[in-house]
C-alpha cells in the first residue's frame, strides 16, 4: 500500500524523509487551472494532424525529449521523457471532427513534473484566413495534496509548471506547423 505524501510526511516528521519518498498516488480536493492559446499560420486540418498523433509530441514540444505511445485512440498511453524524468499520459477522447483531444495524467512523477494529477484538453479551431487557434487547458492538482506542501510541490509550482509546459508546447507547435525550427532544432530533412 502506498500512503499519500501528506501521511508519509506526518509519519516521517522530517522534510528529508518526505523528499526521499515516492510521489502521492491520490489527488486532493482542490483543483487548479492552467491554460494557454496560440494562433498558427497554418490550416486547422494540418495543425490537428500534428496534435492528434498522440505519441509524436516530442516532434514539436521542446520540453519533451522523447515520447512513445501505444496508439492514437481512447485508452492509448504515452510515456513522456522530460528533463528530470518520465510521466505517462492516458488518452481519454479524440474527436477528429471537432478537433478536440482529452487526456489525463495516468502515472505521475512529481520530481519530473510537480503535478499529482491533471486532465487536459487541446482543441484546434479555425481562425479564418488559413489560420488556426489552438487552446490547451488543464485542471490539475498540486504535487503534494496534503495541507502543508513544500514550495516546490504547492499550487503555484504546479500551475506554473503546467502553464510553462503549455506555452513552450504551443510555441513549438506553431514553429513546426509554420515550418520553422522547433527550439533551434532544424525541421526534419533540412
Amino acid at each position, binding site marked *: 500500500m502506498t500512503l499519500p505524501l501528506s501521511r508519509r510526511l506526518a509519519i516521517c516528521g522530517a522534510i528529508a524523509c518526505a523528499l526521499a519518498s515516492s510521489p502521492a498516488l491520490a489527488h*486532493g480536493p482542490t483543483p487548479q487551472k492552467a491554460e494557454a492559446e496560440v494562433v498558427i499560420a497554418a490550416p486547422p486540418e494540418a495543425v490537428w494532424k500534428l496534435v492528434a498523433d498522440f505519441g509524436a509530441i516530442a516532434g514539436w514540444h521542446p520540453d519533451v525529449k522523447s515520447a512513445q505511445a501505444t496508439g492514437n485512440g481512447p485508452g492509448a498511453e504515452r510515456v513522456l521523457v522530460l528533463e528530470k524524468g518520465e510521466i505517462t499520459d492516458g488518452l*481519454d*477522447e479524440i474527436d477528429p471532427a471537432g478537433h478536440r483531444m*482529452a487526456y489525463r495524467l495516468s502515472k505521475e512523477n512529481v520530481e519530473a513534473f510537480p503535478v499529482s494529477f491533471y486532465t487536459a484538453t487541446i482543441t484546434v479551431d479555425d481562425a479564418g484566413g488559413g489560420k488556426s487557434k489552438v487552446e490547451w487547458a488543464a485542471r490539475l492538482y498540486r504535487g503534494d*495534496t496534503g*495541507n502543508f506542501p513544500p514550495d516546490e510541490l504547492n499550487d503555484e509550482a504546479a500551475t506554473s509548471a503546467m502553464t510553462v509546459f503549455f506555452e513552450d508546447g504551443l510555441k513549438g507547435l506553431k514553429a513546426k506547423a509554420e515550418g520553422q525550427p522547433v527550439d533551434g532544432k532544424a525541421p526534419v530533412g533540412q
Partner: protein
Amino acid sequence: MKRRRALRIVTALLFMLAAGAASASELLVVCQSGAELRGVETQHFTTTRQLKLPKAPAALALSPDRASAFITHPDAGLLTRVDLARSALITSAAIGGQPFGIVADPDGRTLYVGDWSADRVRRLDAASLAETGSVAVGRSPAGLALDPARRELYSADREAGAVSIIDLETFTRVATVPVGEGPYSFDTSGDRRTLRVVNVRSGDLAEIDKDSHAVTRLAVGKMPYGAASLSRTGEVLVANQQSGTLSLVAAGASRPIRTLRVGGSPEGVAVDPSHPRAYVADWFSDQVLVVDLDALQVAARIGVCKGPRSLTLLP
C-alpha cells in the same frame, strides 16, 4: 420553538424580497478558487448575495430548517457556518484534517463531515461544531449522502472504489459495497430504494440497491463528477467533467440516452423541482449553466465567481 418558527418566517420574507418573486428560488453556488458563496435567483438570474468565505471552500450542506449553510474547506481544515437570512459568516471552526463531503442530519442537531486524508467520517454537533464521534471508512472519502428513513449514511470512498454504509444509531460501518473506480458524489435527491453514485475513474453511474446492495453500472462520459435525478421522469442527469458533456440517463437503460456537449468542466448538478430545468456548475468557465431538460440544451450561462464546483437550490 416559537422563536425558530418566527425566524423561519423572517427568513422566507427576506428571501422573497431578495428574489423579487415568490415563485423563484435561490441557487447557492460555492466557488472554490474565488472563495465565495454566490446566490442567484432562478427567475431573472440576478445576483442575490455575494459572501466572501475563507480559503478554498468545497462542499455545502443546508441545515434542515434552511437557516444555515455549512461549508467545508479541505485546504484549511475549516468548517464554516453561514446564516442565510443575514447572509453573514457566523463561524469558521478549525476542525482539522481535510474536511470535504458534508451532510446535515434532518434531526437538526448533527452534521457528518468526511475527512479526505484521514479516511474517516466525523460526527459533529451542529450547534457547537464539536466532534461527537468518528468512524473509519475507505480511502479518501469524497461525497456523503444520508437516508433519514433508513437512518443510514453513505460515504463515496474514492480511492477504495467502494461505498461505506454507516448505521447512524450505532455510528458504525455496517457494509462496504464495491461500486467501480473512483466513486465521488451521490445523487442526493433521495430515492428510497436506490442509491446512485458517479465513478470518476471508470466513467459510470453506479446504482446500488439499498436492500440487497446489488450494483448496476451504466457507462456515461469521462470523469463524471455530479449527478441528480429528475423526479418527473426518473432520469438522471450526469455532468462529465473531462468530456465536457452532460448525459441524461434513463433508469434501467444500458447506455446514456442523450448527450449534450457543453464544454468546459461541468461538475455539480442541481435539478429545479418547479421547472423542467437543471443547473450545472462549470468550474472552467466560472459559469452556472441553465439546462432546459425538455429540449436538452443550454438555455443560459450565468457568470458567477471563480471556480464554481458545488451548488444547491434553496427552495
